[in-house]
């Protein structure tokens, strides 16, 4: 059951409704689980255009769904699992304003990852992009992350589509991995990680992270350190420093990870028993996790904002 992931680049409200309404009602006719995730302001007009069909469709606010890219993947994964064996048909409008350049890029990566995470789900998604309101960069990303394009009543293959691994690699090239000289350092040399948790926990509190954000960072750092001990090569260590409101925690070891891809830890496992559960969960626990597998070792950088 292949995924149908299409971008719908539209001009104005009439254009939007003329495609969104038939897309959603076709799902109702086919007995699919139909959801509409869009900005709150758009709920009223779409309900009106759907008329009596609106009752059978689950409406969600994009403002709630799109807060953290990896958590959004998880929300959709839970939705798809909960509806099985029914297929899911979703109108899915992300939130594009209010993000930094780096965050915007992570959301573009998220759109690309949908093609991997839901490849076998049989789900159908229509992602609306308002050409009259969104910056050209976001429209360009839309063309690179959706294999299909909605064009009036038709769906066409998108020749500009970039494979997720390639798109991810391109996102990764924009990252910087320098580390301040005065970063606090703790060697990781024992499976008993109590000292490491206290080290991270104390600094998280001093930085003013909320209790839960601190506990999440401690759990994530513990996992990265346990991985470095289990799979990496010594010496392993942990660095901590602040960047404005961010507390940055990096765990590194001298092991090489030649088959690490830009998709590592992004594809949601089906359960905790599958490979990849640890890294996926680290991505969920912190605001941003970046993995770098280079000639000089493997580094997991975790960032938590206060």
């Amino acid at each position: 059951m292949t995924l149908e992931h299409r971008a719908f680049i539209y001009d104005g409200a009439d254009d939007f409704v003329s495609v969104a309404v038939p897309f959603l009602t076709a799902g109702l006719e086919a007995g699919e689980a139909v959801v509409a995730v869009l900005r709150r302001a758009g709920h009223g007009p779409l309900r009106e255009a759907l008329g009596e069909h609106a009752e059978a469709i689950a409406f969600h606010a994009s403002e709630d769904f799109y807060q953290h890219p990896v958590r959004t993947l998880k929300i959709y994964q839970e939705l798809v699992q909960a509806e099985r064996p029914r297929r899911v048909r979703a109108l899915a409008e992300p939130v594009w304003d209010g993000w930094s350049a780096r965050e915007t890029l992570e959301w573009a990566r998220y759109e690309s990852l949908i093609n991997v995470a839901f490849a076998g789900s049989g789900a159908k998604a229509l992602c609306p992009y308002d050409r009259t309101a969104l910056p050209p960069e976001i429209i360009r990303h839309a063309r690179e992350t959706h294999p299909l394009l909605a064009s009036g009543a038709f769906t066409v293959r998108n020749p500009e589509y970039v494979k997720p691994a390639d798109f991810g690699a391109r996102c990764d090239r924009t990252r910087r991995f320098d580390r301040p000289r005065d970063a606090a350092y703790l060697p990781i040399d024992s499976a008993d990680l109590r000292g490491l948790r206290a080290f991270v926990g104390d600094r998280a509190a001093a930085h003013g992270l909320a209790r839960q954000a601190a506990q999440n960072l401690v759990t994530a750092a513990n996992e990265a350190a346990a991985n470095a001990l289990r799979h990496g090569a010594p010496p392993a260590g942990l660095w901590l420093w602040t960047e404005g409101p961010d507390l940055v925690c990096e765990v590194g070891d001298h092991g090489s990870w030649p088959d690490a891809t830009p998709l590592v830890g992004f594809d949601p496992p089906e359960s905790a028993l599958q490979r990849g559960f640890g890294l996926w969960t680290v991505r969920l626990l912190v605001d941003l996790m970046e993995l770098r597998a280079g000639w000089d070792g493997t580094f997991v950088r975790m960032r938590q904002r206060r």
Partner: protein
Amino acid sequence: MGSMESLWTVRRPVRELRPGDHAWLAYTGREEQHHVTGAFVRAGLDAGERVVYLSGAAPVTAPRLPAHERLSVVALGRGGRRGGHFDPAALMRAVAEAVADAGDEDHRGVRIAADMTWAVRRPGGLELLLDCERRIDIAIGPSTRAIALCQFDRARCTAAELEALGGSHGVEVVPDPEFEDSVLRIVRTFRPPGLALAGELDASRHAVLLEALTTVAAGAGREVHLDLSRLRFIDLGALNILADTAAHASGRGALVLDRMSPQLRTVVETVGWHMLPGLRLGP
């Protein structure tokens, strides 16, 4: 000891019982009785002490006791069914003999274990027994060589009876930890069946978690509860072990995580319960 003393009733694991302790156990089911009494008896035999097990009339219903030259079983009841007639004098005689033997230089001490539930159920049994308990307190309390452990079946005593019995013992015995070091403690629980975890759990202690889970899962056909109220940290690897245990416990029911702190609970919710099939959040 009088009723004043009951205000200071202390809870003590089996291995920390010491001479002079007159302890009690209100057990829930044979499993708990065997677990605690078994540890009590083994500890005595291992230390070269004598062990005297007092029971109702034959056939003796003592929990699986090892055959051992320093272990003797004394049937107290006379005739009749379900333990027979309760004779307080016979009880006091048996206790006095055991305590007197403890002064014998051949032995390092004596442990007296008795399931007295049958006596509570005789007409007027509770009052007779409470009187005996007071006298046992006087006999054991000053002793530097004797320990007594009285056991009662919760299911066959009323709340008021249990309260009165508890008040007549200075020590409430609890199970020895399955594991304990400066970071983590794992203790068996019986109401509900499971484990209580306290402290912090990371990869360096996954093996002991797995071992403890195996012992509790051995009594099949039921849910296993983990009391996490005093667990401050759990790593993702341990969550994975719990999910794996639940997944392989086919027909045994789920693992239930009880009383998690809000912080741990949010971590698990971030992971997602759908990632952890077979695990369930308890009260």
